[in-house]
């Protein structure tokens, strides 16, 4: 997901307080910033929300890559609006994280020096226009799978951010599917682009949900706290079951020879992604990790003078105002 393999923090708090806290969560109450919370809950949330926020920010890059080459004015406008939405999502999420006592600048520094992660998916390149379709359809689609349940997460500010974000994400997914329809129903070259995009984005999309449940060590505490609402495998299964018929509708082939409907479980059997690739990407060895981080670091470092200039000006204005009073 946008937050993958979020390590949950052990908590050493007063057992009575912990029990009362857990009771609130079990009763479906929302935890608000001023409420008491275990340190582990707070830290895990910072990591998860921060990772999600960073994903929105880095996620601007693979799609921004096609804004200047969008084939029509309308497609350019739609893509611009989408990338702008993603930046907005980043902003809501950083605000939600700030309620937990960490500033946006601190989180940004942690992204830029590699202490914090973002979703593995954004380390894959976007090579043709069909990738703009595939990203909307599959990547935003996978994000929605995870984020819709998170609207009910226990932490109030996070839950409210998710409500706003989900509306826009489903719009993105429809727009992505619309591009895929145009491509899949278009010329021979467009059909090839569409199939190629599905071939390249299928397994990376499955990886978005994180490792298989049997290898997912951090899930249970997070699920108890209702920071994580479903297991990785549940969501992955749901995603495959939703997406395969859509691929069929498009006349595209999911690049998995083992894919087959399983009547007994009422879902598809499918091949797992290559987890060694996934761990490699998380370690920094995806096709675009280095470039993504270089781009974000350059945006931050090369423009430090802008932030400093505007802050200096604001300080002068404030000083002048004080002097006038």
């Amino acid at each position, binding site marked *: 997901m946008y937050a993958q393999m979020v390590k949950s923090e052990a908590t050493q708090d007063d057992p009575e307080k912990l029990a009362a806290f857990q009771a609130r969560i079990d009763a479906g109450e929302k935890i608000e910033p001023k409420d008491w919370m275990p340190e582990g809950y707070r830290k895990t949330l910072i990591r998860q929300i921060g990772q999600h926020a960073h994903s929105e*920010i880095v996620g*601007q*890059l693979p799609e*921004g890559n096609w*804004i*200047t*080459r*969008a*084939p*029509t*004015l*309308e*497609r*350019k*406008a739609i893509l*611009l*609006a989408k*990338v*702008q939405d993603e*930046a*907005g999502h*980043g*902003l809501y999420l*950083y605000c939600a994280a700030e309620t937990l006592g960490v500033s*946006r600048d601190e989180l940004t520094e942690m992204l830029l020096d590699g202490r914090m992660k973002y979703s593995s998916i954004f380390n894959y390149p976007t090579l043709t*226009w069909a990738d703009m379709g595939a990203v909307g359809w599959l990547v935003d689609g996978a994000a929605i799978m995870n984020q819709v349940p998170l609207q009910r997460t226990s932490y109030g500010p996070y839950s409210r951010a998710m409500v706003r974000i989900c509306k826009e994400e489903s719009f993105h997914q429809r727009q992505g599917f619309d*591009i895929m329809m*145009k491509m899949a129903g*278009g*010329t021979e*070259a*467009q059909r090839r682009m569409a199939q190629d995009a599905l071939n390249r984005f299928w397994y990376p999309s499955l990886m978005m949900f994180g490792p298989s449940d049997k290898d997912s060590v951090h899930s249970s505490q997070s699920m108890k706290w209702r920071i994580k609402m479903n297991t990785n495998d549940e969501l992955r299964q749901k995603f495959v079951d939703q997406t395969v018929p859509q691929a069929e509708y498009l006349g595209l082939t999911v690049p998995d020879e083992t894919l087959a409907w399983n009547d007994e479980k009422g879902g598809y059997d499918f091949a797992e992604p290559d987890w060694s690739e996934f761990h490699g990407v998380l370690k920094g060895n995806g096709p675009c990790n280095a470039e993504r981080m270089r*781009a974000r670091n*350059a*945006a*931050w470092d*090369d*423009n*430090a*003078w*802008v*932030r*400093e*200039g*505007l*802050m*200096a*000006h*604001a300080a*002068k204005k404030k000083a002048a105002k004080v002097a006038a009073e």
Partner: protein
Amino acid sequence: MATPASSTAAQLDEALFTFLLRMGDNTLVLGHRVSEWCGHAPVLEEDIALANTALDLIGQTQMWLGLAADVEGQGRSADDLAMLRDVWDFRNLLLVEQPNGDFGQTIMRQYLFDQFHLLLLRALQDSADDRIAGIAAKAVKEVGYHVERSAETVIGLGDGTEESHGRMQAALDWLSPYVGEMFVSDEIDAEMATRGIVPDPASLRAPYDAALAEVLAKATLSRHEGDFAHQGGKTGFRHSEHLGHMLTQMQWLQRAYPGAAW
């Protein structure tokens, strides 16, 4: 809107068509330039604001070039005009095709254009052509916000740190020779002005200079003497080398896969 007896319908259409291309090409080319910042801005709010500006400009392009295509009446669409003309058929100002440079150059270019754009759109709200007045009425709200933001940023950075001041002064020096073209009137402008469709651009110069002087004073920036002006964008006679490179990107898909629907 009456047609003057002295001017044939074909001539009028051509002048109107050219004027509409000038409007639409300015917004298209500048919108494209601004969109190049996507994901690389100094701060998240700026990513959002730049994308928003680009989005407004592309939306205005759809209106201006859409009307241009209607006026031309040759079955071309706004997309055909954007994606299938070569450099010499573009009618945008040289200013808007200049590369982004650093953020200072981008925001200075934006302010220099926004201020002109706002004055022009305000006047166009009273155009004798209702279609133009309608587009201007929509666009003027967006551009009012653009100029507020770009002026504020020019002031903040000009009157910021020593470094930001230096960069903004360099941006102003670099871009100043591209200001004059906005106010040069040619026979197209003359015909449009006579028809009451468009104000004479020269008439916008005084209010522009006044607004600019006020912003530059607050920004502690100074304009150099002289009013040398590069020309050739709005007539299409001689664009800068930069526009061709922009078009190779912008038009690539349409050129590489002719006739495909996207």
